[in-house]
């Protein structure tokens, strides 16, 4: 990215003053090195977001930002309904409430390695992954509506999760004000056989070793112990969310003019929060959030079933579950005044700092766990929300490493078999229905996740707690 277009406000914060229709500045948080590596499209997209009606304070991009749709991936923006603010289907994305959860185990690396291949095979066999896979839970209309209203709570009521998990899921596993009536027949049909499925692309289930601890106290509060293993799941709202994104994006593209909204990019399609379409989308999107929360709860349940076959008394308690494609109603301080805002995070993680009222008591003094998925080889990070993230980015942080290479370029650079073999030599077992899919997700196709989390910490978004190194990766 051309840095001459930014004002450097710190080593990890870069500002673009409003120009050409921007209603607020744009701010990108990243080191100079990451900034130079970013696609110019990030500049274009984050400044376009700043043109949307009712935007509050600034449009933000996180250190893992890359070229997305309308919003950059790694984009954050908040809107005020009372100031004509909008809700944007493009600002949430197709995979509504895609997110990450991490379960703890008390298993050492050695215990997992002793059954590594068998455990990998069993997880791959038991957790439906990849295109064409189906879940075992069939939903009728009544069941589907209950799921769309209940989220993870619905899954738990059906014996597909544990009540104690709810404390460790945003909004206790259930987005309020979901509206199943706003979910189309097509979206419902697309979900009929997809509950408890992982999906494909960059979605995964990993068994990881806690390889490094950066903050002993916070790690202890989170239950992370160096040398022990965790299970991390990355997936979203499956076909239902994809269909809701598709349909409402179209409706918003076509009706923007009627609402007097000039779209700088059609993918920024949006509607006033107070409009009929805006409210209908919010109801449908919240139903999709509940679908994602239920889906991850079920996959966690499936992982528990597999681990129980190998290790007695391993309950896989949930450390935390957090979404990174959402629009949520939150209260934030703006110029000394607390306001209710509709915060869009597209490929960005909520990162509430210590003391936030929404955090469970056990975690409150330490800040919200922020789960950063890395690539199959480079590993992942657990961060904690910082107090400063509130004023920096409406309490938001990065969500992953971010790609540095297109899928096509990755398949030209690496063969899937070689990626699997190379990772095997590093002690990591990859299970995937598609070698081409593995090549597209090769570690080298991603940015250096360490540079991303270091930037997030330096920028005051979230601080490092632990580094997780994969032992098993089930890819969709």
């Amino acid at each position, binding site marked *: 990215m051309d840095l001459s277009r930014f004002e450097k406000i710190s080593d990890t914060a870069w500002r673009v003053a409003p120009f050409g229709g921007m209603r607020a500045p744009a701010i990108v948080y990243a080191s100079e090195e990451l900034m130079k590596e970013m*696609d110019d*499209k990030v500049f274009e997209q984050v400044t376009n977001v700043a043109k949307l009606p009712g935007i509050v304070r600034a449009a933000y991009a996180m250190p893992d930002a*890359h*070229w*997305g*749709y*309308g919003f950059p*991936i790694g984009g954050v923006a908040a809107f005020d309904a009372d100031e004509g603010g909008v809700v944007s289907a*493009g600002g949430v*994305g*197709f*995979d509504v409430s895609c997110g990450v959860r991490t379960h703890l185990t008390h298993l050492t690396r050695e215990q997992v390695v002793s059954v590594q291949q068998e455990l990998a095979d069993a997880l791959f066999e038991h957790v439906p992954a*990849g*295109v*064409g*896979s*189906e879940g075992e839970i069939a939903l009728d209309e009544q069941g589907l509506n209950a799921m769309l209203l209940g989220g993870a709570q619905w899954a738990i009521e059906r014996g597909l999760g544990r009540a104690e998990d709810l404390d460790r899921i945003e909004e206790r596993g259930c987005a309020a004000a979901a509206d199943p009536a706003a979910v189309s027949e*097509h979206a419902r*049909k*697309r979900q009929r056989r997809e509950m408890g499925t992982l*999906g*494909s*692309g960059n979605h995964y289930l990993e068994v990881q070793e806690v390889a490094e601890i950066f903050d002993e106290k916070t790690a202890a509060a989170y239950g992370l112990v160096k040398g022990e293993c965790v299970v991390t799941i990355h997936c979203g709202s499956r*076909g239902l969310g*994809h*269909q809701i*994104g*598709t349909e409402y*994006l*179209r409706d918003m*593209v*076509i009706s923007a003019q009627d609402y007097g909204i000039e779209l700088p*990019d*059609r*993918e920024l*399609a949006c509607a006033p929060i107070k409009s009929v379409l805006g409210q209908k989308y919010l109801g449908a999107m919240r139903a999709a959030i509940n679908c994602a929360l239920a889906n991850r709860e079920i996959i966690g349940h499936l992982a528990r079933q597999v681990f129980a076959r190998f290790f007695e008394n391993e309950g896989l308690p949930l450390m935390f579950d957090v979404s990174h494609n959402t629009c949520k109603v939150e209260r934030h301080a703006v110029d000394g005044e607390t306001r209710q805002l509709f915060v869009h995070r597209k490929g960005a993680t909520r990162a509430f700092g210590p003391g936030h009222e929404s955090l469970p008591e056990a975690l409150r003094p330490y800040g919200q766990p922020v789960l950063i998925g890395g690539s199959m080889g480079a590993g992942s990070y657990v961060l904690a929300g910082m107090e400063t993230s509130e004023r920096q980015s409406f309490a938001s942080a990065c969500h992953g490493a*971010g*790609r540095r290479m*297109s*899928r*096509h*370029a990755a398949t030209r650079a690496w063969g899937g078999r070689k990626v699997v073999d190379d990772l095997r030599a590093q002690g990591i077992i990859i299970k995937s*229905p*598609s*070698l*081409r*899919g593995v090549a*597209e997700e090769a570690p080298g196709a991603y940015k250096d996740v360490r540079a991303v989390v270091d930037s997030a910490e330096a920028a005051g978004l979230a601080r490092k707690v632990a580094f997780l190194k994969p032992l098993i990766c089930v890819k*969709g």
Partner: protein
Amino acid sequence: MSAAGDHGAAARWEHFPHDADIGVRGYGASPEEAFAQAALAMMAAILDPATVRIEQTIDIVLEAPRLDLLLVDWLNALIYEMAERRMVFGAFEVTIEDHHLKGRALGEAVSRARHAPAVEAKGATYTELACVEDWPGLWRAQCVIDV
């Protein structure tokens, strides 16, 4: 990446890069041909279309206020049919009249073993969307697919 199409000298498809996802582009002597080639490009992002047997046909009828919006609708309709019917497609037929599209997708039930799909298409986007006649007799239909 590109491959020669079946329908005419101008007909072909290719992928273009997008950071996280994949751009699909179809060329043809008419919008119809470009739409069919864009659909093939989308399938090629998922699997090798040559591995798909033609065993079933699915008919699709759509309308949209503009040709480029119709392209997004067409690709999204195919994504929906693939997901709902657990199918993959290897050939397409399209006719367009006054922004009304009649399409046919030909393919079979997905086989994870034989097709080994690399990714799942989540949705066709308005990013880099275009349906234009670059010069007389050469139409280009393209957009980015979220995978």
